[in-house]
Structure formats: C-alpha cells, structure tokens
C-alpha cells in the first residue's frame, strides 16, 4: 500500500496534508483498496463548520456505504467537485486528484492525535496480521 511520507494519517484511513492553516483531507490507498470500486461520493457544503470526528463525507462502493470522519475541527474552505462527478478518481488517484475537502484548521493541538507515516504503516501491518 502506498503511504506517502509527506502526509499525516488516522486509524480511520484518512490522510491529512497540513499547509500552514489549511489541511487537505482525503482517504488513503488502503481505504480505496478495501472499499473497491467507488461509485458515489457525498461531500458537505463549502463554508460549513465541522468538528473533529463528525461525518465529513459519505463514500459508496459497489458493495457498501461508509462514512469519512473529520480528522480535525475547522471550517470547510473548499470541496473537490471532481470526485462527486467522477467517483472513480478516488480509486485511481487517492492522494493527488481525489482530495475530498480543504479545511481551515481551528485547533492545531488536535494534530497531536494524527499518525505519522511510519506509525500508520505499522498500523496497516497489524491489520494485515
């Protein structure tokens, strides 16, 4: 599974790219692979406030529907309409084209709860056992 070095992660298989006050959020290669062919993505409205652990998006694959949770608290500044129009992008390009939302981070202390790439890799290894 591809786990880029410049991102942070959650145990719910989201990735977070922090750039000053903004955080770009998506789902990991492991997540897209486990879900299989993604057929539908629902995103929140840009401008909305979101709390850490609240439902950020809904992703459906052929076999199942699942929720994506907000890894940080903040205000949604941008959503990626491309993945709503072409959900298969989430399978094809989970870290590049298929980012989900960009949020303005409210509380950087929450960053402490995120996993660095090596801890996320270890977590994936445990799951594979």
């Amino acid at each position, binding site marked *: 599974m591809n786990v880029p070095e410049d991102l942070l992660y959650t145990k719910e298989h989201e990735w977070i790219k922090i750039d000053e006050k903004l955080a770009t959020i998506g789902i990991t290669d492991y997540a897209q692979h486990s879900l*299989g*062919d993604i*057929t*539908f993505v*629902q995103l929140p409205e840009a401008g909305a406030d979101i709390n850490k652990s609240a439902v950020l998006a*809904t992703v*459906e*694959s*052929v*076999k*199942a*529907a699942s*929720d994506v949770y907000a890894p940080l608290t903040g205000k949604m500044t941008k959503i990626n309409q491309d993945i709503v129009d072409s*959900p298969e992008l989430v*399978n094809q390009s989970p870290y590049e084209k298929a980012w989900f939302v960009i949020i303005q981070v409210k509380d950087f202390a929450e960053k402490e709860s995120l996993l660095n790439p090596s801890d996320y890799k270890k977590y994936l290894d445990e799951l594979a056992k």
Partner: protein
Amino acid sequence: MKNKALKQTPLLNQHKDLGAKLGPFGGWLMPIQYEGIIAEHIWTRQSASLFDICHMGEFLIHAEPKNIESDNIFTFRLSSMPLGSCKYGFMLNETGGIIDDLVAYRLETGKWMIVVNASTKDKDLLHISGNLSPEIIIEDISAKTAKLDLQGPLSGDIISQLAGEGIGGLKYYQCGNFILLNRNVIISRTGYTGELGFEIYADRQETADIWDIILADKRVKPAGLGARDTLRLEMCYPLYGQDIDDKTTPLEAGLEQFVDFKKDFIGKNALLKQREEGASKKIISFISDTRRSPRHGDKIYSEDKEVGFVASGSFSPSLGFGIGIGYVENGYDWIGAHISIRNERSELAAQITDRPFYRKGTARR
C-alpha cells in the same frame, strides 16, 4: 466466522496468485473480486468471464421415470423434462416458503442432476431424501464435483474451441456430455449473468486444469462473486437468502411461472390459498435517481408510510445508477410509482420499474 472455519475451493491457490480479494460466502472462502467488480462486470457483458462456482451443491437422482412422476418435492415434473434439458424451479415448505431454488438437469432417462445453493445444500439433501420414495436413490456428489461458469457473448466461440463444435447446438437451458481436455464433463447453456454462457461440471481433481486452459484464451478473464452479484441483479435473478427464503413464496417473489400447478408438491395448498386471497407482500424492482445505491435492509417508503424493505441493492455498472429489488405491501407495487429508500444515514428517491433492468443480454441468442 473466521476464514479458517470456511470450506475451500480447489482453486484457492489460483485465486491467490491472481490477486483475488477473498471473502466468506455460503460457508466457503470464495473470490469476491480480482481486478475490480466494475471491470469484471463490464468484461462479462462484452467478452467472457470465468467464475469459480465450486461452492454450489450437486445431487444425482437415479430413478425409474414412473417412480419419480409422483414426487411431491419439486414445483415442476422431473419426469416430463426432455432428455438433455435443464429446468429452474423450487422446493417449498408446507407454508409455500422457498426451501431452495435449483436447476435440474435430465442427464439420462433415469438420471437427473440437481444443482442447489451452497448454504442450503445440507438441508436440501435432508428434505429431498426424506420425501423421496425408497426405491429412488439420491447421491450427493458436491464434494467430488467442480463447477465453473463461463459467461459472456464470446463464451460460445471459446467453449466450442475447447469442447468441440457440437456445443454450438445447445440451446438456452439445454445440457449434454462433452469432452474437455480428454475428460468427460457436463456442460449446460445456462448461467446467472444474462449473457450467453455455459456451466461446466467436472471431476473436482480436474478443476485447476480446466480453469487454466479456459483462462489461457485471452478473451477470458476471471470474475468473482462481486461481479456475479451485480450481473444477476441487473437481470433481476433472485439470490437465495437475500431475495427469496423460507418465509417467501414464489408468488410473492414474482416467480409463479416456475411452479406447475398441475402437479402435486409440498406447499401447493398454501400457494393456491395465497393465489386466491392475494399475497400480502409483492416483489418490486426499482431504480435510484442517482449513482447512490439502495442497500439490503433499507426501508421503503411511499410518501411517509413505511411499506416495505430492500432485499438486494447495488450500483449498476451497466446502467450507471443505483438499482434494487425489494418487497412492498400489496397495492404499493405499481410500475412507475415514486418511492423513497431510507436508512439511518440517508434517503434516496427511486421509482418502481419493470424487470429486468438490463435488456441487452445475450443469454437467449
């Protein structure tokens, strides 16, 4: 259930080598997908796919035709099937509920093969042997039988190259004995996808050789149970345990055409009564307004009244939107009706439609 407790197909290593995602189905560890459900689905509709179906059960019935004529087990008459034909039907319980759906093959004048679902096989065997007259022999050949399904518009050409041109003479729902890789196999022109297709029954020891030689043809790719499910749902073929079960009758499920009321069978009185009084629930098929898909267990609403539930639901790879099968109270099943599908997380708008969803299938060509 832990994977360790599951039964294994003879092709498990092949599936692993092909990178399959494996999962439990009907008590077996089976390939769910290889390349991806959508890609496998589309390939089956355009070219041909090979499915490992070794989990399903097979019984042989040996009987003098006159002795089996009065069986009360099946909803159709084994003794009136033409030699070399297949027939779909049911075994019912006393209340008309479906114990299993099955396909019977008349292999010889006094020999039939019954193909049943994996999860119901043992209960089916008990039910049949408990109701057959003693001079009739039933034999469970599941453990020594392999079943591979080759499905897709190009499957006729592919199977003819391997098992001889004679197979081109098979019509839809016919079967026969053929030679494949110098071995005797039974092949029927049947399937569960809506496409032209063949089901191959061979000795279990030969499974891997047959699997490999068919996959050596580059027009064929392996497909898993995930694609099998989306393919069958586009055709509105029922899945036992999900769309039909022992609490659902063939009348409720819209499958009355597979019941011969001129014959006696367990559950017939219940069906006759239901036919007279009307079924309280009716099967419907419906399409979502969007790519969002209905799911098994979702509730069906007509305006603000809960009227039923979703039995099977998925994204349709051929059509590009959500499709589903469900049951609603009698009176809410009219084609064109707008319904809403709800669960804790979402609500989606849908419309009842006639079946099947997919109409370009090549099965009967």
